[in-house]
């Protein structure tokens, strides 16, 4: 029963993407354009913009999609009264929320594909296995962030949700070293990174290329998932619909 409802919910969400592609355009284009800009400006320095950069800019690209889209979609459905219809229909809470998260994943994959293409064009051939491992880590590791997105979407209007989520996204990706290397930031700002979930997502992805410890990052993301799930469930249950 719930599987059929889930399929229907995901289908509805995906149809929304296909038929209203404006959001897809901005969500995908902005991170890819950013990556292309930085690759063009700094591609000749250091190790260039290969798979390693895919880990950090890819983390930004995935977060830009997964942290923003589900929450804004939920806020929109709530404001329209459509969420009220779903609740009255007996659609389970978990199904509604997980469908929104699942529907964000194709955006994330398309974003990663765009960044990979730019990396290939600017840096030459890439190790396909590494690209797949980095992409897999980024897509799966981004899921906890979508839970925070849903928590915001359950509490704010669509326009306020966009502002709040971008206010969460932009500082955290900068302070996590996803745009610029942490060494370019003041020391005290760089030290903040280890407390931020995006930093651990990027480091986990980077470990697929450069090696290094992973379990500390995994534990941090698991803890983030638990906190995010609680926040989303509490926010949704108390949301005015």
């Amino acid at each position, binding site marked *: 029963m719930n599987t059929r409802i889930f399929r*229907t919910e995901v289908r*509805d969400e995906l*149809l929304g993407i*296909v038929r*209203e592609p404006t959001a897809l355009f901005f969500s995908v284009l902005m991170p890819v354009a950013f990556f292309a800009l930085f690759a063009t400006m700094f591609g000749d320095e250091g190790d260039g913009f290969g798979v390693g950069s895919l880990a950090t800019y890819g983390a930004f690209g995935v977060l830009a999609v997964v942290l923003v889209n589900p929450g804004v979609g939920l806020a929109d459905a709530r404001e329209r*009264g459509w969420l*009220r*219809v779903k609740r*009255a229909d007996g659609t389970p809470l978990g199904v509604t929320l997980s469908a929104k998260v699942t529907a964000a994943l194709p955006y994330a994959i398309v974003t990663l594909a765009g960044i990979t293409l730019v990396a290939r064009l600017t840096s030459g051939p890439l190790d396909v296995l590494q690209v797949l491992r980095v992409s897999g880590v980024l897509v799966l590791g981004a899921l906890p962030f979508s839970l925070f997105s849903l928590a915001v979407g359950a509490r704010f209007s669509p326009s306020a949700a966009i502002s709040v989520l971008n206010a969460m996204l932009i500082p955290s990706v900068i302070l996590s070293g996803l745009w610029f290397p942490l060494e370019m930031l003041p020391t005290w700002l760089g030290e903040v990174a280890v407390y931020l979930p995006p930093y651990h997502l990027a480091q986990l992805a980077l470990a697929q290329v450069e090696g290094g410890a992973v379990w500390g990052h995994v534990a941090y993301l698991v803890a983030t998932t638990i906190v995010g799930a609680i926040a989303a469930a509490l926010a949704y249950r108390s949301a005015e619909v």
Partner: protein
Amino acid sequence: MEHVLEVRGLVHRYGDLTALAGVDLTVKAGECVALLGPNGAGKTTLVRNVIGLIEGNSDLIEVAGGNPRSAETRRRLGVVQQAVGFPRSLTVGEIVGGAAARRGCPPEAAKQAIAEMGLTGLEKRRAAKLSGGQQQRLQLAMGLVADPVLLVLDEPTEGLDVEARRRFWNTIRRRLDNGAGVLITTHLVDEAAAVADRVVVVDRGRVVAEGTPDELRRTLPDRRIEVRTKVPVSVIRALDSVHSVELRDGRTVIAATDSEQVVSTLLDLDPEANDLTVATASLEEVLVALTNHEEVAA
């Protein structure tokens, strides 16, 4: 007859504001109950409790023997809510099909509900592009898809034209004949009076009156007499059982308990009195009297 809805002692508070102060309400299978009252009376809060969107404190609240907070019970309801905006991207067919899927019904049930609400041919149209009346019918089609045991309809005829309203009430009558219960709120009091088996009047969070439309009309003892007569107002006012007299557009309008006696006396005093009408109180007048408000709305 079996109850499809039973509410006892429902209290709902929003902070310091008591929206419902101990409401009892029942709907039997095959019965249509109209919930009437002024704005802010607590009707929407009551409806939202019944369909499980919110939860107050109650001794009992059962829909078809189940708790409305459970998803299983909610799938046995057909609901039309106020102020619902459909997703921009979905078509009529996808929306009703989705409602069928959420209730575990086959796709054919969606087609039947679409046909029943006169939306055949619009299946591929985006719901957000439908007219207000068509969107209202779409919501009802979603509600009908699972052959519900109880239809909860909050202002269901809002935005419907005459033909659509006729079709709507025919659909409701068919569902009643098939044993579904109906709980309806509407500001169209005459429509409610024509269709409802029972009317429940809510005011300030309490049920202030309950009965068939005729029973409620009889609770207001006054009859309204309108007549063209030369008898002075002061003389009429002095008659037994007369409560009020006023002149309106050249006619004398009298509110009286014993209309037969008043008319007889008037004709004795003025044999040429003409243009005489005597009317019982309308349901709307009853509601105004019961709720002591000028404006009556659902």
